[in-house]
């Protein structure tokens, strides 16, 4: 039965009304039968009809029990074979019900029926039997004695008739009536009264005449006895055959026992006969009582069995529904709900299950949505990662990523090519990744400590070739996952191009600078030659002036060549511990009071010791101050130095005319100068010195006016 139909069945008001009504009716019927059985005679109790009815009822009940039991067992076996949930629990429940009901009911039946049979046997084994036997014997003796008197009287009449014939019949009959204490005496012939005398006190009117058959029996057997019961008492008549002269006759005498005596006699006889009847019906009585008891027992058993099956179904219904629901839920059927309603704890359980299923369904939906969204995000991330990977693989810039433990996270193809290394495995240590040839790069990367982005140009030799690299590092600031992203730009070609351009420019400048003195030299030589050819009187003066000009220009050329030679022969730096404040003072002293209105001030910690090439730095600062003095008409030139997070920071600020933006790009190129007399090598030398210290120099506009040079040197 399905849960919904079971629910309807349970809630059907007809069942609710009919079931108690049937139970009440059956109980009333049994009670009525028991009450009626008390009034039934032993014959009725032991009648075959009653036993037949009871046996058939019992048979029907037994068949009903067997049917209910077999049906239940077969259904349970089939349910267990089909693996229907709850069948095992129901089997145990039914078995428990049946055993716990069968045992007491069976025990009660066997004990009670045995007790009943023993009690019935005990009824017939009491002294009542002897008492009734004796009573009947006494009554029979009294009746026999009376019958004996009638027999004596009849025989005397018969003897008298045989002796004397019918001559003195009246006298003989009267004599017998008087002396034998009988109430009736007479002679019959062929069933007709010949002579009959009666006691006037006896109710002769209620005495029927003997039947012809009686007379025939007397004549055939020689005697006969007849008892007739009338309203006032009992007649006992005895007849004997008489073979007289006139043929066969019947002599008869009778005694009347009035009711007060005859009823006593009859009562005794009847009492014993009833007892005998009961005794002979003992087996039937036991059978009827046992059958009646069996009927009640089987009815109870049937009811208990049916109820146990029904109750087990009711109890296991919710359990089964819950088990099935759980199974469906476990299989992923989150939309499953138990429709069964119950008012007991099962109802609470079912409600809880349905709530849990709803929550699971809701959470499942949310998870599915979240999963779909995550899949979408993952797909997008994969696409972005692939795109990023493609971009990284496509760019010419080498990209490497490290974690804080300097383990390689990723490296692109361009970086591998630039560094000329084999494809490293993920997680490779930086120390093992870069060979000794790249020691400068390795040391630079291993020295990354700052949070700020850093950039540095490195020159390395790979495969016998000089390479110029710009290494920029930026901090990875992912939560819980720090590290560095390093971008390596190969500047070799750019540097080559820049050098080529610089030398082109330098050549052009040199050519220009050489050309400039050549013109006065040429003009002086031509003037001297013309003067000399024309014998001009001013020849000597012209020679003098021309020679002076030529010498001056040649000297200028020589100076310029010396400067270039010096620039070309820049010595290697020699680093040592140096007091920065002292260098500042030495340089500033050279330029104090050199130009009216222009002052030089230095700011530096007198105790600050740094590692650098003292002479080279001093030379760079002289060049910078030289330019600052030249560019400043009035004001203070400030030379300051301090340690910052990026190393030693040296600033040279002047309030001069400043540098146009267009000139800033070429400022550090060799032989670029905005001065008429400048060689254009001063700032190029400064740039070279700073570069040799692995530092960098940057030019800014000073506020409110002028120029500011910042030199950063790692310490």
């Amino acid at each position, binding site marked *: 039965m399905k849960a919904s139909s079971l629910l309807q069945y349970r809630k059907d008001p007809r069942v609710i009304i009919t079931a108690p009504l049937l139970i009440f009716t059956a109980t009333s019927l049994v009670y009525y039968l028991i009450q009626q059985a008390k009034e039934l005679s032993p*014959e009725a109790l032991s009648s*075959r009809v009653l*036993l*037949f009815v009871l*046996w058939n009822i*019992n048979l029907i009940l037994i068949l009903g029990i067997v049917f209910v039991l077999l049906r239940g067992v077969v259904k349970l076996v089939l349910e267990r074979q089909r693996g229907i949930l709850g069948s095992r629990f129901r089997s145990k429940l039914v078995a428990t019900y049946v055993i716990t009901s069968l045992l007491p009911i069976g025990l009660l039946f066997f004990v009670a*029926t045995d007790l009943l*049979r023993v009690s019935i046997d005990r009824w017939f084994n009491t002294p009542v039997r002897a008492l009734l036997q004796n009573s009947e014997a006494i009554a029979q003796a009294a009746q026999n004695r009376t019958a004996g008197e009638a027999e004596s009287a009849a025989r005397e009449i018969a003897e008298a008739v045989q002796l004397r014939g019918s001559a003195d019949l009246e006298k003989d009959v009267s004599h017998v009536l008087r002396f034998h204490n009988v109430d009736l005496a007479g002679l019959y012939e062929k069933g007709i009264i010949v002579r009959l005398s009666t006691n006037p006190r006896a109710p002769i009117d209620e005495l029927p005449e003997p039947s012809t058959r009686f007379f025939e029996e007397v004549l055939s057997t020689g005697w006969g*006895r007849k*008892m007739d*019961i009338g309203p006032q008492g*009992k007649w006992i008549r005895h007849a004997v055959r008489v073979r007289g002269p006139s043929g066969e006759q019947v002599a008869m005498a009778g005694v009347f026992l009035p009711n007060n005596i005859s009823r006593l006699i*009859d009562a005794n*006889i*009847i009492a*014993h*006969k009833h007892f*005998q*009847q009961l*005794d*002979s*019906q003992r*087996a*039937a009585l*036991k*059978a009827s009582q*046992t*059958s009646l008891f*069996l009927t009640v027992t089987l009815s109870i058993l049937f009811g208990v069995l049916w109820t146990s099956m029904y109750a087990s179904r009711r109890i296991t219904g919710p359990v089964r529904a819950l088990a099935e629901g759980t199974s469906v839920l476990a299989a992923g059927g989150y939309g499953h709900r138990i429709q069964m309603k119950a008012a007991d704890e099962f109802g609470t359980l079912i409600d809880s299950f349905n709530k849990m299923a709803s929550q699971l369904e809701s959470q499942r939906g949310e998870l599915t949505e979240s999963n779909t969204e995550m899949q979408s995000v993952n797909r997008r991330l994969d696409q972005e990662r692939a795109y990023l990977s493609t971009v990284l693989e496509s760019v010419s810039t080498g990209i490497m990523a490290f974690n804080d433990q300097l383990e390689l996270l990723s490296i692109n193809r361009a970086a591998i090519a630039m560094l000329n290394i084999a494809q490293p495995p993920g997680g490779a240590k930086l120390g093992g990744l870069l060979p000794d040839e790249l020691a400068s790069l390795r040391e630079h990367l291993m020295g990354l400590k700052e949070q700020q982005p850093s950039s540095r140009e490195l020159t390395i030799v790979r495969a016998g070739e000089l390479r110029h690299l710009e290494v920029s590092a930026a901090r990875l600031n992912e939560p819980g996952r720090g590290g560095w992203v390093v971008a390596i730009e190969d500047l070799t070609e750019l540097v080559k191009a820049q050098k080529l351009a610089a030398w082109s420019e330098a050549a052009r400048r040199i050519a220009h600078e050489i050309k400039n003195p050549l013109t006065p030299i040429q003009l002086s030589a031509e003037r001297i030659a013309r003067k000399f050819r024309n014998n001009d009187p001013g020849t000597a003066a012209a020679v003098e002036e021309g020679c002076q000009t030529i010498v001056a220009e040649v000297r200028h050329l020589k100076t310029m060549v010396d400067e270039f030679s010096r620039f070309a022969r820049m010595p290697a730096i020699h680093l040592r511990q140096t007091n920065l404040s002292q260098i500042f003072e030495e340089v500033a002293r050279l330029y104090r009071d050199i130009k009216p209105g222009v002052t030089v001030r230095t700011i530096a910690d007198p105790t600050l010791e740094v590692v650098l090439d003292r002479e080279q730095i001093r030379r760079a600062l002289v060049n910078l101050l030289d330019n600052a003095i030249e560019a400043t008409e009035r004001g203070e030139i400030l030379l300051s130095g301090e340690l910052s997070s990026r190393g030693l920071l040296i600033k040279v600020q002047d309030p001069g005319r400043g540098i146009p933006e267009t000139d800033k790009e070429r400022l550090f190129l060799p032989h670029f100068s905005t001065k008429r007399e400048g060689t254009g090598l001063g700032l190029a030398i400064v740039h070279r010195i700073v570069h040799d210290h692995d530092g960098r120099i940057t030019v800014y506009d000073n506020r409110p006016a002028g120029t500011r040079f910042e030199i950063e040197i790692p310490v």
Partner: protein
Amino acid sequence: MIAVRFDLTNASARQDIITSLQSGLPTAFTYEIQLIRKRPNWFDEGVAEARLEMICTFNSLTQEYLLNYRRDRRLVRSEVLRDLPTLMKKMTSISEERLFSTGRYRPQKLVVRARASLTQGYLLHVVPWQETTSWKQVRVRSEER
């Protein structure tokens, strides 16, 4: 016509039957008599059957036994007896002169069988069980008159 005669032995010696007879309860001996035709290697064919009942009721007040003789559930005759031996003889001796007709069958092919049902017992004190003798049968034979 077929006359049937037989005696039920040992019934008068049983005290339970005597007690039942003298208790005044109706006590019945039922005889089932069948006339069958024997068929070799096949089921016997029933030709005719009769049911005889001897029902005795004792009147303890008049000390008389009323014996009703029924055939096929119809009362044929009644008689009053006063002594038990005569009664038992009447109830256990069956003599029916014209019980069956041979009809179209040859007498030598016919068999008469009979059994008697006496008192009722109860199996396990509950299940009614009729005490019945086994079937006794004799072949029909012609009798010279």
